[in-house]
């Protein structure tokens, strides 16, 4: 293990963590403020990827497609809140799970009908295809740096929005005491719809950013949603700061586990045993962390102050 590899893997972990944050932030907002369990959040991530992929081919430019897709995703979130979430607010969490799980199946099938089963490869412009040299012969792919930049940018914007704007104040107030906010004459339905749309736009953005690396494919959201739930549980449900720190933590642990666990295991066991067990253990690592957090600090690492 050498230093430059470690640095590269930290950057890879940071990139994964920021993507997770984009998904988890919306999830934690909706869960924390609306008290609504939205399993279909991953479907929004997938829709973002598919809209962006289609628009990339239509407009001929990936970055342009991202800027057009973000408001589309917000609109999709808005509609989803109206038709799916609003009738379920008054019900209990099990109904939320059932309703949004149904939504996953419906959206997956719609995507299958519209775009076919094969998924879409998203081409990048040439200036994003290359690598950026850090020092010596250490390079990182340009696009991964862009993801890190976009993730940090979105996180900064969100931080500003939540902490320094009137809307953010209402969001925080809503998270603390919903009834009081509506009693003060705030249009709580409008606030909820805005929060849902914001979450959809963020999840969609994550999908758009991952699409050129993997591809836009059916079911891609079901994969990340589980990890996103791990993030918000570790971070503390409803906490933006918790989601940010936990996302980076999970991203780093997952990446570093995949990179170095077999080398570490080789100290303790035979090469063959290490090669067999390391992939299994590294796939479990984040769940082990979650189990530990639930055992010793069930409210999460950074729970919101008032619930």
């Amino acid at each position: 293990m050498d230093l430059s590899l470690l640095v590269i893997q930290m950057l890879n972990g940071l990139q994964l963590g920021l993507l997770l944050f984009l998904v988890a932030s919306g999830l934690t907002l909706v869960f924390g403020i609306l008290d609504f369990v939205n399993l279909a959040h991953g479907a929004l991530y997938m829709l973002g990827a598919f809209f962006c992929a289609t628009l990339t081919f239509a407009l001929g430019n990936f970055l342009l497609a991202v800027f057009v897709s973000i408001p589309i995703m917000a609109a999709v979130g808005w509609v989803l809140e109206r038709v799916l979430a609003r009738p379920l607010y008054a019900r209990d969490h099990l109904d939320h799970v059932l309703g949004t799980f149904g939504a996953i199946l419906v959206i997956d099938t719609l995507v299958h009908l519209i775009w076919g089963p094969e998924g879409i490869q998203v081409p990048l412009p040439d200036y994003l295809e290359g690598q950026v040299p850090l020092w010596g012969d250490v390079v990182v792919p340009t696009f991964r740096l862009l993801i890190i930049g976009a993730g940090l940018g979105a996180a900064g914007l969100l931080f500003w929005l939540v902490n320094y704007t009137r809307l953010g104040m209402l969001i925080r107030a809503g998270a603390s005491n919903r009834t009081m906010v509506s009693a003060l004459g705030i249009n709580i339905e409008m606030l909820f719809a805005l929060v849902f749309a914001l979450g959809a736009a963020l999840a969609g953005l994550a999908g758009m950013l991952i699409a050129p690396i993997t591809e836009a494919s059916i079911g891609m959201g079901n994969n990340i949603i589980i990890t996103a739930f791990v993030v918000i549980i570790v971070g503390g449900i409803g906490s933006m700061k918790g989601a940010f720190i936990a996302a980076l933590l999970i991203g780093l642990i997952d990446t570093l586990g995949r990179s170095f666990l077999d080398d570490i295991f080789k100290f303790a066991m035979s090469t063959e045993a290490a090669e067999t067990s390391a992939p299994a253990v590294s796939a479990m690592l984040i769940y082990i962390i979650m189990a530990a957090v639930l055992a010793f600090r069930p409210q999460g690492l950074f729970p919101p102050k008032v619930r």
Partner: protein
Amino acid sequence: MKRILSMALAATMLTTPAMAATVKIGFVTTLTTGAAVIGKDMENAVNLAMDHLDGMAGDTKLEVVFGDDQFAPEAGKQVTDKLVKQDDVDVVAGYIWSHVLLASRKSVLDAGKILISANAGPSQIAGKLCSENFFSTSWQNDQTPMAMGEVLNQQGVKSLYIMAPNYAAGKNMVAGVERTFQGEVKGKDLTKWGADAQLDFSAELAKAKASGAEGIFVFYPGAAAGAFIKQYHQAGLKDTMPLYSVFTVDALSLPRLQAADFESVVGSRVTQQWDPSLDNAANKKFVDDFKAKYGGYPSFYAAQSYDAIMLIASAVEAVGGDMSDQDAFRAAIKAADFDSVRGDFAFGTNNMPVQNFYLREVVADADGNWTTKVVATVYENHVDSYAAECSMN
């Protein structure tokens, strides 16, 4: 309403005697999740085979019932049980995934039916778990990477980094290339697989690069292929660490890579037991009609599925549609008296095909579409490494 009902009833009564002369084939593949792209290709090939046969094997009507394994062993076993028990099919074919086949095989074999793999070839089923009722129209998993190992030796590659998904076939692929490759293996990664497979390979590619190996060998079938190849190029490894792959660059990933303009995949080399350019009448008809009907090249998955249906049809015809004498039917399958798209076709002692393996290169065809062509024959009439472990010897 009443009239419709009575008509339906009459129709059922009319068709019932004819049903007795129908041979039912269950075909299990992946029709949902991202891997449905493979399943769709196989489904297309099966339908094309049925078109070519006019739905008949001699005087016997053939019927295919598709089943979706959802890319998961438990779902695959469930749908296999349904085909065997509820639909009462005579033969079960298909199976993309080794772990799905391993989970489902008992359901078919215990019911005393014939099982034909159109893709998966886990080592167990070729060796210790071989059965007189199991046949394959594909290959044993190790064979294709073994051929690639030979190619690497011939090209003088001294060290290799290996990446594959962490499931039955992935492990077989790694074992296969390690068996024949004579250089040093600098490192290997087995990544998470299944419906929630890992598709972001940043950490593994960084490790591969740091290992300083002269080449990288990968096995990433289906949707993972495009993802891997893109990240491989984005990581800038193309010039320092050439890509050697099996079941990754195929007729499914190439059109999408072309749409996204991944020029650099042209010229890359892969090993396979079949190619659209193989020169025989059956293959020409298959490839031309497939392209005419579905607008693209068939993949090797499609070729193997087409062969599976043709094999079954040949055996059904040989026994005159009489499925009651299973020994005769099994013998007719084993005889493999049909026109395979890979040319001559024969089964070995363990009922795996004994066949050639070719080195293929990615080229643009006359219309500018990316496809593959055969550049060399690596193995002739190759027998898999597990045949000796099979008790049918």
